[in-house]
């Protein structure tokens, strides 16, 4: 199975894709921080930021539909937090601010992830002297998240193929056992990966 959930369009050809990683990472951080810290009353600033991001999105040739769907997906998580804000006095404005800030930040990070292959971001972190243990963890996470998703899919399918009744409680029990299996398999795999690393000279 092929997965590209994290960085489907990261290997397209465009002026944005060709830009140096460091510049893109710096701009991303700058935009996210200013968007998060700017007071909600700076309407013009938010409009400018939105226009800037849209120009980058168009230049990068990433399909708009993809960006919108991705933002909508992550927005679900934001919504849960934003809804809590509604319970406070003056919550309406706060709700709006949270949605606006998070949407712009999400778009910024999505643009970085889809214009830069992950291994180049990792390489950039290395040049910044981010601790190597941290980088190894990130790199292994990116490498194995897809293997894990495949494995979960296979376990789930095997279970479903032998499930003949629909029952809500049973589905929860099933989900729990899939997660359990997945945990055991991942631990075993981690041991084998570690052995494979040692076999090629890895020293802690």
């Amino acid at each position, binding site marked *: 199975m092929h997965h590209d959930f994290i960085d489907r369009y990261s290997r397209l050809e465009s002026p944005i894709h060709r830009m140096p990683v460091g510049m893109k990472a710096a701009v991303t951080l700058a935009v996210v921080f200013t968007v998060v810290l700017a007071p909600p009353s700076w309407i013009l600033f938010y409009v400018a930021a939105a226009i800037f991001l849209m120009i980058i999105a168009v230049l990068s040739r990433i399909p708009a539909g993809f960006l919108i769907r991705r933002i909508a997906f992550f927005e679900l998580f934001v919504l849960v937090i934003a809804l809590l804000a509604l319970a406070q006095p003056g919550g309406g404005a706060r709700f709006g601010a949270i949605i606006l800030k998070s949407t712009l930040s999400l778009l910024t990070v999505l643009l970085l992830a889809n214009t830069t*292959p992950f*291994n180049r971001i990792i390489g950039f972190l290395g040049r910044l002297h981010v601790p190597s243990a941290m980088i190894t963890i990130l790199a292994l996470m*990116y490498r194995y998240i897809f293997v894990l998703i495949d494995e979960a899919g296979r376990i789930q399918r095997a279970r479903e193929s032998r499930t003949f009744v629909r029952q809500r409680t049973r589905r929860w029990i099933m989900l729990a056992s899939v997660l359990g299996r997945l945990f055991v398999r991942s631990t075993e795999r981690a041991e084998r990966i570690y052995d494979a690393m040692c*076999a090629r000279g890895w020293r802690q």
Partner: protein
Amino acid sequence: MPSVAIEAQDLHFRYDGTSQEVLRGISFRVNEGESVGIVGPNGAGKSTLLLHMNGILPTSPDKSQAVRVFGLAITGENLFTIRQTVGLLFQDPDDQLFCATVYEDVAFGPSQFGYSGEKLVSVVESALAMVDLKGYENRSPHHLSIGEKQRVCLAGILACQPKVLVLDEPTHGLDPRGKQHLKTILHSLPATKLIATHDLELVVEMCSRTLLIDGGSLITDGPTLELLSDESLMLSHGLEKPHILRHRHPH
């Protein structure tokens, strides 16, 4: 006299917290340049044996002197020399391809062993050329077929320029074309080979000598054709006489 590449002498092993021995006094020798097959039923101890060949097991290597590689016992000091001498190919390519790109993965071994700069690039390039994967440098492992993954794994080992290749089920999960391709590549490599597999045809084609292991003990050590043709021996250890030997006429 060719020199002895690998020597195991009365090798015993038991996993921590278990009472049963997985390896019960195995002894054998592999000469430099030889290709030796290891066959046996599931759970015979083949994979555990292979993990001893470059010091992954036992986990504290100083205690055991049972395995020697080119005369060198596997101890803490020469562990890394031995790991460079013996390349270990694991059964599941996904366990072995742990880097984000093919290039990084093949470069992992040699960079651990001190290669860098242009020398590293040329070692990686030539390893990829040996497995017919030139131009795959920037591909991600999760976008490759199983056959391609297996060949990248092999390149990752070849890049360390080992003298001995230890392969655990190298044809596992490969389609016939993938198998053929891998065999051609393996044939072209001059290194000493130790191959554990259920693919008995592979053993017939690649190895002149075979070790039969069952229940953690070495049952027989002999010429491949003689050993695999012995139908009653094969059946009594959960194996079978391979098809290519079945239809071979005596004349």
